[in-house]
């Protein structure tokens, strides 16, 4: 380890136009990054690259890959790109973030319960009734049905960004079994080995408890009259892009990983086929989308589901996590109302900010969007993974016209937001052999059970590896960083 007075982070130029997470100025890190910057500055670039590669090969050996889908192409299997330089969040900053995420989850859960029962928030015209009833994710199968413990969103992934003003903004809620937590846990495992001294010095909060906490939460919502519940993870199968995560979580929780075809329903009870004969299943952490869950109720052609599952669920003999029909609340058109939803149910001010959102279904908003498309990000309300997003500032005038046509054809389907400046973080760029600012966001993972809640301390920091790119989703070529919450 020969440094010759050259320090690898000295040449880093902070992203002046954006909020830089690490540096105040060239060579001058923020207080909570001082130890980390000092640590890296003791290394040479080749040391850094070597450690970075060690971590990457450990991912490869663990089989941590994901698949990218493109039209007319076979899915492309990739290793999740990773950067060794951890994102660090100071204690107080984290606490506020955690409080904000929990507040949001509580309110959204009450909202779901309300719109599937008394619908008071709609009658009070806080949220437009049409917006809810026209959503394809609003399920009649859930009307007047109360899931065990009144819990709908057992697992939530909340996407946040830090804007130029240094404040966190919620980008979106993911309430349909969000992915990514397995990367958080494997990132940490790899990083702890490679940056052992630094990690010990900083005492970042642990994340390994997550699977244990998830299992506990799932057990709190077991069906009535069940003493020790049998919990399983249901995956669509090995061709699903998040299959690694499904198997990872099942293994860490110590519960069976099954596919729909391994289960059957008889007399409204769900059974798993085992070599010892059928075994009753009580709680299902399902990673299969609503429309594929039960071909007797939803898509008839679904091979991924279990026929009769919805009736067993409605009979109270099995619990599904997350509950079906939660997608109506993470619809990007409903997102706009979440601050009002928080005030309505909790009588509290929202702790975390929402990004200003224009809903193309509203006449005034539509007019504004069509006139200002070059300054806006346009997103379909019901897609995830960064698909279908257009960023106005990057479009040619022909492309802008094409987006306008698309919006006008289905106004309910699109929202628009100002182009937010995601904060930047020093990230090692292999091609240039230096550290450069790259945009990052954060997905937190939180759990809600009967009388219990939990937020994973940290989360998945996603980084847009292409210079200037604002879309951080892994399916769009993004990478990740470990996220350290300080004690």
């Amino acid at each position: 380890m020969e440094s010759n007075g050259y320090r690898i982070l000295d040449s880093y130029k902070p992203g002046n136009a954006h909020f830089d997470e690490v540096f105040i100025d060239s060579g001058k890190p923020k207080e909570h990054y001082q130890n980390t910057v000092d640590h890296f500055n003791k290394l040479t670039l080749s040391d850094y690259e070597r450690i970075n590669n060690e971590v990457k090969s450990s991912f490869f050996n663990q089989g941590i890959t994901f698949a990218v889908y493109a039209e007319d192409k076979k899915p492309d299997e990739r290793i999740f790109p990773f950067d060794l330089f951890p994102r660090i969040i100071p204690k107080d900053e984290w606490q506020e973030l955690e409080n904000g995420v929990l507040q949001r989850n509580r309110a959204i859960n009450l909202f779901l319960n309300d719109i599937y029962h008394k619908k008071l928030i709609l009658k009070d015209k806080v949220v437009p009734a049409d917006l809810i009833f026209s959503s394809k994710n609003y399920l009649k199968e859930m009307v007047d049905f109360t899931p065990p413990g009144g819990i709908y969103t057992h697992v939530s992934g909340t996407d946040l960004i830090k804007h130029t003003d240094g404040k966190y903004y919620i980008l979106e809620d993911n309430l349909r079994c969000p992915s990514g937590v397995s990367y958080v846990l494997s990132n940490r495992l790899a990083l702890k080995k490679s940056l052992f001294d630094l990690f010990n010095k900083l005492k970042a909060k642990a994340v390994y408890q997550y699977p244990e906490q998830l299992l506990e939460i799932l057990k709190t919502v077991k069906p009535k009259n069940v003493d020790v519940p049998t919990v399983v993870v249901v995956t669509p199968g090995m061709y699903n892009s998040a299959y690694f995560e499904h198997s990872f979580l099942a293994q860490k929780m110590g519960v069976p990983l099954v596919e729909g075809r391994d289960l059957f329903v008889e007399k409204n009870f769900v059974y798993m086929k085992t070599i010892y004969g059928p075994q009753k299943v009580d709680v299902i952490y399902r990673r299969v989308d609503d429309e594929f869950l039960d071909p007797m109720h939803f898509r008839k052609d679904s091979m991924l589901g279990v026929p009769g599952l919805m009736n067993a669920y409605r009979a109270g003999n099995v619990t599904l996590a997350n509950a079906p029909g939660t997608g109506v609340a993470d619809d990007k058109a409903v997102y706009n109302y979440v601050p009002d939803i928080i005030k309505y149910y909790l009588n509290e001010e929202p702790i975390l900010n929402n990004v200003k959102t224009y809903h193309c279904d509203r006449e005034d908003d539509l007019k504004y969007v069509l006139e200002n498309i070059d300054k806006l990000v346009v997103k379909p309300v019901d897609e995830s993974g960064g698909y279908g997003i257009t960023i106005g500032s990057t479009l040619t005038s022909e492309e802008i016209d094409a987006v306008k046509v698309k919006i006008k054809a289905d106004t309910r389907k699109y929202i628009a937001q100002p182009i937010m400046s995601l904060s930047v973080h020093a990230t090692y760029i292999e091609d240039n052999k230096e550290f450069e600012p790259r945009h990052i966001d954060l997905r937190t993972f939180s759990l809600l059970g009967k009388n219990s809640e939990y937020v994973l301390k940290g989360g998945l920091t996603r980084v847009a590896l292409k210079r200037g790119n604002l879309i951080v989703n892994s399916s769009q070529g993004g990478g990740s960083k470990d996220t350290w919450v300080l004690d």
Partner: protein
Amino acid sequence: METFYIEYTIENNYEKPVKKANFGLLILPAKNPFQTIKEQSMCCSDGKESFISPNIFGFDLITHYIDKPFTRFLFKLFATVEVKKLNPFQITTLSPLEEFAIITSVDYQIDNHLFLTSTSLTKMPWNHGIWFPVYRSEQSLFDYLLELNNFIYKLLSYSPQSTNVDTPIEEVLKIKKGVCQDFAHVFISVCRENKIPARYVSGYLIQGDAYIGASQLHAWVEVLIPELGWVGFDATNNLLVDNNYIKIAHGTDYRDCSPIVGVLETAGQQNSKHLVIVKNQQQQ
């Protein structure tokens, strides 16, 4: 009080053995203040006892899970049902204007949203070119619905096999032909366009009295009328629903009321036979 004898048979034959199957049958007469089931028995070719549990609208759903290979599925239901005589011409004390105000109120629209939201089978095309009667505050809802019943009865001609269970309204309005579920779907769709809650009903209809559609399961519509509750209209026959109709279930459209839903593991073709017998007890 009238007593009806009902027999329902379904027989499915499969070209290749079915390895595994789930069946859901929605064919049992509903229990409600107007109809009482006196006797009921059923048998299934799997030799197992039927399992009955409520479907999402609370109607009795029969389910069978079969995990042994078979090439024939046979199910029979026998039931005796007592139906109260009722006068379908009920009178409301509300003025048309009062009625209109209730129906168009926000709370009423929200409380009945399931039967106001269009579904893929009840979606009205925008360019159908037909001048359906429009509901206005000057007319009582009941009178409007009689007019609509008559209008649809005259608009469409009853024609077996002209459509199937997935035919959208757009197609029905184009060919102006259909079977009872098409009459019902069009009726529901016009109601929902006029913000009137309407639901799809499946059931049995007395045979031998020249009703159209009685040889198979029948379909009609129930509309929510303030003060009166849900009132049945049968556009296929241009009639109001009375004690010759035995209800099985209701839902947002046909899909909530399909008499049989099966999810099967099989490669081959199937052919299906249904037999419905509905008799007044005296006729036996």
